[in-house]
């Protein structure tokens, strides 16, 4: 009888109940929406960073990360890369030569990181060839071809076939100038990366780095970085230790780019934070409504206790009313949320109008909503806890009533 009484009490004032159910459902929907949006953005940022920049694992000379000095090379990088590529968990491997320098055109100059790449390997690891928006992806016919980003091309006021001069330190510490011709313009959607990096063929960069070196240095053996992409991120720790060597620094993407680890860890909490804030706001709404519901039936509650309904049952009745409220509202909010997430997860939310700002942070202009599965069971728990917490005070007020005074209440 208590559950029946609680359920019917809920519908004494249908408008008020429906408004509150709507508020809770909206809160649940908003929690899912915000979680989906934030998780989608974070995943987009992480996946962009992994796909385009850091890969899953990178290998460097132990001293290279400190000041990126070109002399800290890997020993026989191509041979090792070939061995790593044979491992079944590895999807693709790329060897890179890295240098820092100055790039200048007739209209301007900028500090730049130069990535010397093997075009085919780079296509497999970062899909750089897919990001060419103008020109070609290393036709390979001529020496000293360079790919620059659209953002950098704009800053240096250059276009396809323009000439650029790269000045960088070679292996002997001498400044080596070299002229490059723009063959392709890329756009990754990560503005800081685009403005700070250019791609040349590794064989060209290696040749330039050894221009003033003794003849004993074989240009084909120069390489500073082996980057690899795995089929499954679960295998990262195992592979990382399997390929580890004393003269290598083997780092995963979280170690290379700690911001990725920060974002990844935030994904765990983002839903909790959003849901907590929303549910906290809803708590006051539920307290208000439940308190009103108690205060407007003081006489009835007094009568119930008068005719023999004990305080525990009165308390349970009020608590059940709040629980029923949540039990009706949560599935409505969840259903709306699931539909929204499904739709925005497949078609994405187009934020192209803010693409410049998003690219500044390395994020895609289309956000594909994603909600971790655990959130779908977290929400009912949150709603139930909120409803119970919010009903505690009104229920306490109810059991504190003195029947003799309550019955006389007009």
């Amino acid at each position, binding site marked *: *009888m208590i559950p029946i*009484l609680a359920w019917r009490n809920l*519908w004494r004032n249908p408008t008020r109940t429906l408004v509150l159910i709507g508020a809770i459902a909206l809160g649940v929907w908003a929690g899912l929406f915000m979680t989906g949006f934030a998780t989608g953005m974070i995943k987009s940022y992480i996946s962009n960073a992994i796909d385009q920049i850091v890969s899953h694992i990178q290998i460097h000379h132990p001293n290279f990360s400190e000041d990126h000095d070109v002399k800290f090379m890997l020993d026989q990088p191509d041979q090792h890369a070939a061995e790593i590529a044979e491992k079944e968990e590895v999807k693709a491997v790329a060897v890179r030569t890295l240098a820092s320098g100055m790039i200048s055109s007739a209209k301007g100059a900028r500090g730049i990181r130069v990535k010397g790449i093997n075009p085919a390997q780079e296509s497999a690891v970062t899909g750089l060839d897919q990001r060419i928006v103008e020109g070609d992806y290393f036709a390979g016919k001529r020496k000293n071809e360079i790919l620059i980003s659209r953002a950098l091309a704009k800053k240096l006021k250059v276009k396809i076939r323009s000439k650029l001069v790269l000045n960088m330190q070679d292996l002997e510490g001498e400044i080596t100038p070299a002229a490059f011709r723009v063959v392709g313009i890329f756009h990754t959607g990560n503005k800081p990366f685009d403005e700070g990096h250019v791609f040349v063929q590794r064989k060209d960069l290696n040749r330039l780095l050894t221009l003033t070196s003794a003849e004993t240095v074989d240009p084909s053996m120069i390489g500073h970085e082996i980057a690899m992409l795995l089929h499954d991120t679960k295998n990262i720790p195992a592979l990382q230790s399997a390929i580890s060597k004393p003269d290598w620094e083997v780092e995963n993407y979280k170690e290379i780019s700690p911001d990725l680890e920060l974002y990844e860890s935030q994904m765990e909490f983002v839903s909790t934070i959003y849901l907590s804030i929303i549910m906290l706001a809803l708590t006051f709404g539920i307290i208000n409504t439940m308190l009103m519901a108690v205060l407007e039936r003081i006489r009835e509650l007094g*009568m119930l*206790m008068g*005719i*023999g309904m*004990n305080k525990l049952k009165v308390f349970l009745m009020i608590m059940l009313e709040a629980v029923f409220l949540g039990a009706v509202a949560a599935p409505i909010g969840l259903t709306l949320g699931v539909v929204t997430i499904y739709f925005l997860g497949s078609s994405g939310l187009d934020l192209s109008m803010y693409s410049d700002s998003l690219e500044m942070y390395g994020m895609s202009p289309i956000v594909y909503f994603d909600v971790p599965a655990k959130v779908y069971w977290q929400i009912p728990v949150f709603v139930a806890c909120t409803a119970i917490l919010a009903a505690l005070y009104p229920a306490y007020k109810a059991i504190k009533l003195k029947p003799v005074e309550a*019955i006389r209440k007009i």
Partner: protein
Amino acid sequence: MDVIKTQGVTKVYNPEKIPVHALNGVDINIEEGEFTAIVGPSGSGKTTLLNIIGGLDRPSDGEVFVGGQDISQLSDNQLIDFRKEYIGFVFQAYNLIPVLTAKENVEFVMLLQKRSKEERDQRVQELMDSVGLSDKMDSRPAQLSGGQQQRVAVARALAPKPTFILADEPTANLDSKSTENLLDIMARLNKEENMTFVFSTHDQRVIDRARRVVTLVDGKISQDERRD
């Protein structure tokens, strides 16, 4: 046999500020099967006495025995259980549960008593027949007239088979016809089931039907008239 017995019952409201003496040493014995009206002017202490006898309020001093048990010694929760088992209440404003049907209202206290469904159904049918509302079983209080609601309230009060029924101004909101109808029902139940009724009332029609009239003035019994 005394169903209710009070000894020197005193009730003082606001004892520390401006004391109001609602009852001043009331001694009253009510026997099984009595049909008693407690009358008196407003503020004479009728409702206070009924509340104390019914375990809804506690006396400031004195003792209250119901069925031989001193109820002034019971805790709040024990009092709730006591009321559930031994006392039926009929309130002036009917005080039915608006979200329950007439049948469910009558059944409610029996559910709290954990009576079986069979027993409940049988008792509800019997009582609704008795108050002439067997065709209104599924009506909610808002669908019933004042008189019908008060008859349901009487059926509810009788449902748990209490030792006695306390009715606080039960006819105050009823028209003449409903009042007569209700009094007929209560008189019949009193006679047929030997149920003890104690009323507080101003209503001359109730006073005329009572077999004992206790008059309270300024919290004291000024007259106790038996009309056997």
